[in-house]
């Protein structure tokens, strides 16, 4: 296991910084069902952190706790060195945590451009009156944010569908637009809930490349949930393994892969 000291260097030579987000003894119950039981882990600056586990293990619940959608009954969430008070999801988003969803949650009635522009909401400071006039500040703000959004659109190679209504797009592109919307917020922590679910090999390769590029170029800290073990082990720097709401493993992909408990619960053994 890793020590708690400041940062480490990954196999491919990237420097990982201090702790960005720390979950301390999180317990989440729905009535009598315990979705998450006393789980602690941390996410460090610049790393790609994976959360894996069988279905119903509580991975998505964990992501929902991080993004403020669920409020855990016990435990503390520390973000950037301070304990986070209980806050509404949109306030969490303002702090710089963006996410994508397991079942795509795009705004179907809007164009791709408008969808990605909603990612910039936290940077929009003009008030209703200024926007009603569409002059001066409001217009300048719109243009400035549009430039950032266009960079993201360029980066994810979705220029050609900019003006298309989202409802008309195929699944794979929708996933990419959703990533674009999250990236447009220039998040300090990016949460990806099964970014590769339902994709074919080629689309998975594309998506993996985008995730690595995002991490590489912008230094974005990423936490992701994924079921494709090949992808997870290749992409991530450290992995948390959950089963029935409990943490059963935490460490580098190699450590996790050789952890007997993890093998029993999730990975299984190769039969020859």
């Amino acid at each position, binding site marked *: 296991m890793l020590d708690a000291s400041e940062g480490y260097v990954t196999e491919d030579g990237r420097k990982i910084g201090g702790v960005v987000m720390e979950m301390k003894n999180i317990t989440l119950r729905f009535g009598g069902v315990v979705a998450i039981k006393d789980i602690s882990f941390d996410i460090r600056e610049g790393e790609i952190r994976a959360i894996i586990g069988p279905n119903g293990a509580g991975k998505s619940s964990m992501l929902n706790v991080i993004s403020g959608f669920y409020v855990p009954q016990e435990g503390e969430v520390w973000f950037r060195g301070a304990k986070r008070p209980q806050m509404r999801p949109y306030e969490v988003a*303002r702090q710089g945590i963006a996410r994508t969803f397991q079942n795509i949650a795009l705004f179907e*009635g809007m164009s791709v451009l408008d969808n990605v522009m909603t990612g910039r909401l936290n940077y929009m400071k003009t008030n209703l009156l200024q*926007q009603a006039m569409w002059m001066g500040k409001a217009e300048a703000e719109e243009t400035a944010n549009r430039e950032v959004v266009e960079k993201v659109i360029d980066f994810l190679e979705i220029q050609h569908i900019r003006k298309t209504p989202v409802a008309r797009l195929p699944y794979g592109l929708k996933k990419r637009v959703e990533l674009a919307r999250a990236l447009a917020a220039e998040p300090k922590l990016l949460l990806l809930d099964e970014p590769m679910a339902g994709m074919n090999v080629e689309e998975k390769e594309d998506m993996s490349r985008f995730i690595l590029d995002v991490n590489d170029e912008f230094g974005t800290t990423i936490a992701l949930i994924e079921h494709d073990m090949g992808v997870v082990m290749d992409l991530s720097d450290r992995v948390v393994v959950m089963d029935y709401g409990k943490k059963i493993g935490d460490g580098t992909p190699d450590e996790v892969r050789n952890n007997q408990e993890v093998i029993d619960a999730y990975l299984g053994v190769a039969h020859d």
Partner: protein
Amino acid sequence: MFYREAGDFKVSYRDDSQTFPIKFDRYRYYVVLAVAFGVIPFLINDYWANALLLPFLIYAIAAIGLNILVGYCGQVSLGTGGFMAVGAYSCYKLMTAFPEVSMFIHVILAGGITALVGVLFGLPSLRIKGFYLAVATLAAQFFLVWLFNRVPWFYNYSASGQINAPERDVFGIIITGPNAPAWATYLFCLVFLALSALIARNLTRGTTGRTWMAIRDMDIAAEIIGVNPLKAKMSAFAVSSFFIGISGALFFALYLGAVEVGEAFGIQKSFLVLFMVIIGGLGSIFGSFAGAAFLVLLPVVLKVVGADWLGWPTDIVAHLQLVIVGALIILFLILEPHGLAQLWRVAKEKLRLWPFPY
């Protein structure tokens, strides 16, 4: 053939987000504005103003308002009539209390007061959605009409319980009361409609519009990516009620002149404006115009064709109108939920390729 964007390149993001990105559209829009402001006032007479133009202008403002709430923000409202009554009565109280202040200010203030009332009745939308919200706004409708009927202060203790618009002028030209010339009332309403449409367009193409549409399309996801639902919904209710209040004030002061609240602003009015929005197109400013024009024109056309040309009895024509509107609502909901505006968009798409569709 001439209607296409080919060769019309945008070199700045500002150009790209303008209201009419295609040159032809832009010029047509200028022509319509020029005709509306420069030609019609010289041709107008009392019949045209009262039968068609004034109701169209005023209902279009109401439809824009309701479209912001229902079409853009996805919050169903059946309280339009009640909110129009708030606009009318606050305009009346202001007109009688401050006779020397300009009508422009009265109408805008009436809109502002209605916005406050709208926010108040919009508060339940934070908790309830869809059907249930519709019922809550229905309560607002009945409560407001009851209030204006029962509290004599609102109609200045007049014996009839009606409110009558006193004669007021703008720049020395009478615009309310029986002596107002048709062109003046027309121009006054037109100015408000043009400004309302402009403001609505500016709001809907920018940040505010995107937060509204985000709430409409998926409110939970919207909140998680940073939309404050309280702010988004309340701003939609405020802006929507502001426009509806203005239209109510104009409807009372310039169009009817005398109003009995249950008759002028009853539940039928709420449905009429809602039908305009549905037939015209949810989530489209142009659709608000189209819907208002359609439902204002329909009775007139039916009367001319049915009663004057074919010689049918007038009561049959009047009932026929109800049947046709009902059938159209059902047809539009089934076949084209985005209304006339969508039909117009499809026509434009076809026109772009015409006459070589492949």
